[in-house]
């Protein structure tokens, strides 16, 4: 049954024809002493971009990095070749140091390693990292897969760190899974949400 109002089809064939919002929550995962968090379903051609939101990601180990990698085989392997850029700003609570700098030690050049999206996170009880990562058109079999991330973190030595990373997964295979982990130790706590973005 279709529902048509003033000549406009509101719904038909089991779905709404009008927009109900462009940001659609697809999956929520909550860490609890987790070695990693992976999204191995729903990354497909339904949406042409996906956003991951990080809410208070808290590491078990002090002074480590939060990282991600991609998979083209639904999570059997996280080893997609990437070329990336990373820069950051920092400012300490003592107001003795500021910085805006490119991070030559945290970018990748045709590497299958995990990509750092926040470094040096503290594990004090109130320390964590929050932010977002957008992955563009992962199901393309024509183009490389671009990503852009921006996170803010609480550094182990009481700095605020703002990380900007971007780049591409240098593959024309469809990316269909993503994994997040710490460079050492577990993700002690925190939430990662995956959204599909309609019509982006």
């Amino acid at each position, binding site marked *: *049954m*279709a*529902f048509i109002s003033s000549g406009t089809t509101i*719904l*038909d*064939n*089991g*779905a*709404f024809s009008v*927009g*109900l*919002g*462009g*940001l*659609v*929550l697809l999956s929520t995962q909550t860490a609890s002493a987790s070695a990693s968090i992976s999204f191995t379903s729903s990354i497909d051609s339904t949406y042409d971009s996906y956003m991951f*939101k990080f*809410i*208070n990601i*808290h590491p078990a180990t002090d002074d480590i990095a939060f990282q991600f990698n991609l998979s083209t085989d639904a999570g059997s392997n996280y080893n997609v070749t990437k070329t990336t850029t990373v820069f950051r*700003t*920092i*400012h*300490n*609570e*003592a*107001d003795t140091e*500021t*910085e*805006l700098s490119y991070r030559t030690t945290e970018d990748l050049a045709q590497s299958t390693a995990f990509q750092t999206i926040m470094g040096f996170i503290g594990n004090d*009880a*109130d*320390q*964590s*990292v*929050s*932010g*977002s990562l957008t992955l563009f058109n992962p199901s393309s079999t024509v183009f490389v897969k671009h990503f852009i991330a*921006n*996170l*803010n*973190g*609480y550094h182990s030595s009481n*700095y*605020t*760190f*703002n990380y900007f990373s971007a780049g591409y997964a240098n593959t024309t295979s469809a990316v269909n899974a993503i994994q997040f982990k710490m460079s050492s130790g577990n993700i002690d706590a925190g*939430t990662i949400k995956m*959204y599909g973005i309609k019509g982006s």
Partner: protein
Amino acid sequence: MAVVSGGTTLIDNGALDAGVPTGSLILLSTQTASSSASLSFTSGIDSTYDSYVFKFIDIHPSADGANLMINFSTDGGSNYNVTKTTTRFYAYNGETSGFTLLGYLTGADLAQSTADQEFIRGIGSDNDQAGVGILHLFNPSSTTYVKHFIGRSSTAQSSDYAEDDYLAGYANTISAINAVRFQMSSGNIDDGIIKMYGVK
């Protein structure tokens, strides 16, 4: 009455069916400035959402070169004086070519300060000048973690250049934040709209 289309229930019992994919960016409040000393959001910031987005549409100051300032409250808006540590950097280009810069904004950041934080910077008060921006506030109701925020703004600056400003940091409190205030560094918010969204 239920609305069923193509064998799929879309509406029933006064609400959309739970299986209908709906938007996750929920408009909670819109405030429009009209020679306003400040605009404050004192309700709707709670544990319903684990992140909030504020959008700033054509913020126009009464005083030339004024900055739009932010502060937070943990007591429902009685006091806006939460301790913050932040980073700032910017890029600009003058209408007269060759006047460009990318750099850290020393003096515009905060280190363990309860003062208002500058966000949209140096807005011109000519009739056609204004500033826009987006600010993300993560998990304000947490009683465990500091409260991260990330923002970016674009300004038609008072000296006739385009300025792109970045702000990030944390409100260094484990008390829940339940109100946010925006005001100019001098004069009023002559005109403009601020919208607050919750993100599911």
